[in-house]
């Protein structure tokens, strides 16, 4: 087997492989900077919570329009936004921390969703139908992901400065500007937008995995925020490329394969990363002692 067969051949022969890669690049462009910001805000588990939070919206869409993707995805988006905004508002207005208020609202939302599904008398796994697979990227899914990535990058550029200040020192931002809540809620909206689009096109595991694992790995390679985001994006794209090849050559399911590759990248970074890596730290200390 030549190198070409190993690395390029699958993408040259099959359009579903090219589409999968394109979807991953687009998703990573929007999701990895957001993942880095979520990590800095200690909200790394938001993605998992959100996967449950969107159920009532998807169920409502299903009850109104039947097994149709668009109403289900739109309902899910609305439910996700409501949960994110409510938890954001509660964490600002009360001493309850963001993670606790998010947990409360997503659990309420999930319970509401299961109830709605049961009232509807159907046990079709809505989430299984709604959540796509990276191997089944149609035009609609690609356009959706690319559109969301574009909106996210533009919106992040607009709110970047106050958002970063808000992450680091919300008290300071409050003294110089009243934009704090607006910026925070806009950011939460972007998070939900990216996640819901990601679930719909690629499935939960993959969209959360490509958002958070590269961000966590980037932490061991860079210090400045800009570099963190670039490293995270590169790591996500490389994971996607290698993961698809692993899935192709070894016959492993694609979503888990990509996330496992990202996980290996995280493990390597954790051990060998130049910034605060475990082994790197040991070597430095020995040098100092000598």
């Amino acid at each position: 087997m030549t190198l070409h067969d190993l690395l390029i051949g699958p993408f040259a022969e099959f359009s579903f492989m090219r589409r999968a890669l394109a979807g991953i690049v687009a998703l990573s462009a929007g999701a990895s900077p957001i993942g880095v910001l979520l990590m800095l805000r200690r909200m790394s588990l938001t993605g998992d919570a959100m996967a449950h939070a969107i159920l009532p919206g998807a169920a409502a869409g299903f009850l109104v329009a039947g097994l149709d993707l668009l109403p289900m995805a739109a309902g899910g988006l609305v439910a996700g936004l409501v949960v994110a905004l409510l938890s954001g508002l509660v964490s600002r207005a009360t001493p309850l921390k963001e993670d606790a208020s998010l947990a409360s609202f997503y659990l309420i939302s999930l319970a509401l969703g299961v109830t709605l599904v049961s009232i509807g008398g159907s046990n079709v796994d809505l989430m299984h139908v709604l959540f796509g697979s990276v191997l089944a990227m149609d035009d609609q899914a690609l356009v959706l992901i690319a559109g969301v990535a574009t909106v996210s990058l533009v919106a992040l550029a607009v709110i970047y400065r106050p958002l970063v200040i808000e992450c680091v020192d919300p008290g300071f931002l409050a003294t110089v500007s009243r934009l704090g809540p607006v910026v925070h809620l806009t950011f939460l909206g972007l998070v939900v937008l990216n996640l819901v689009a990601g679930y719909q096109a690629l499935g939960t595991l993959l969209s959360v995995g490509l958002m958070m694992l590269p961000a966590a790995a980037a932490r061991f390679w860079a210090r400045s925020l800009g570099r963190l985001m670039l490293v995270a994006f590169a790591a996500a794209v490389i994971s996607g490329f290698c993961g698809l090849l692993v899935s192709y050559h070894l016959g492993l399911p694609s979503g888990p394969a990509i996330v496992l590759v990202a996980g290996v990248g995280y493990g390597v970074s954790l051990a060998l990363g130049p910034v605060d890596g475990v082994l790197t730290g040991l070597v430095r200390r020995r040098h100092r002692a000598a």
Partner: protein
Amino acid sequence: MVRTKSGGGTRRDRGTGWRWTVGGLRALVAVLGAVAILAGRPDAAGAGEPVLKVVASFSIIADMARQVGGARVDVVSLVPAGSDAHVFRPSPAEAEALRRADVVLVNGLGFEGYMGRLVAAAGGRASPVVVSEGVQVLLAGERCAGAVPCDDAPAPFGTVVAKATDPHAWQDPQNGVVYVGNIARAFCEADRAGCPDYKAAAARYIGEIEALDGELRAAFARLPADRRTIVTSHDAFGYLGRAYGLHVLAAEGLGTESEPTAQTVARLVRLIRNHKGVAMFGETASDPRLMAAIAAETGATVGGVLHADTLDAPGGPPTAIWR
């Protein structure tokens, strides 16, 4: 007449072989529909109030039970028609139905993992009757077992090596006969007075199934050996394939929860590109996007929608599952 109507010889995207395959299968669907309408008539046997309360684990068994029991039985399906049996969540009302049931019918072969616990928790007096008792079991990933020669079909693939049993045994009409016999026996044990009625209804129903089976066998026998490959979304049609010498390939595994691999999809795409006579089918209760992606890649079209683990509507045509 029905044949020509929905037999559909109008496909333009493939050679004649393709047209033949899809046309043939569609004609079968039409014939089955007609048989199903005949079979679906309200049963005259045992008029009056229902004597037996029956709970079936999912809609296909429930339908068979209605055929056998007629008006003497009141059948409830735990997993409603049109739903995905792999992800069923029971509610207290269903536990209550189980507790009051005189007969509980389950498929067995690992299809209802939760059923034993649910029955125990409900505290009912009926212990579940496994209706697949006595069928020739197919192991997951095992293809073309038994007397059916499949050597001329394209080489089988897929990484399923686990020796788990494939629970979708009802896909083979001959197994359907076994199911019906088991159901009639269970009803006879619970309600001796109605036994002759059940036996008569079962015999009539088995007759219909046998006739249908014969028709299908004859129809599939006319299919050339290299045009007997069908592609489905989840791997639930192994028994159907074994019964009629079809080579059944699936993009996903036995359960609907498993995820497709790039390798499987790539091989399916290659196979469909290289073999003209491959028919693709979607499924009710499943995401159509993966099959659509494969179809787009190969220029094939998805030939129809199959019923794997569920029927469309409550009381839907009983023999329709074999379409």
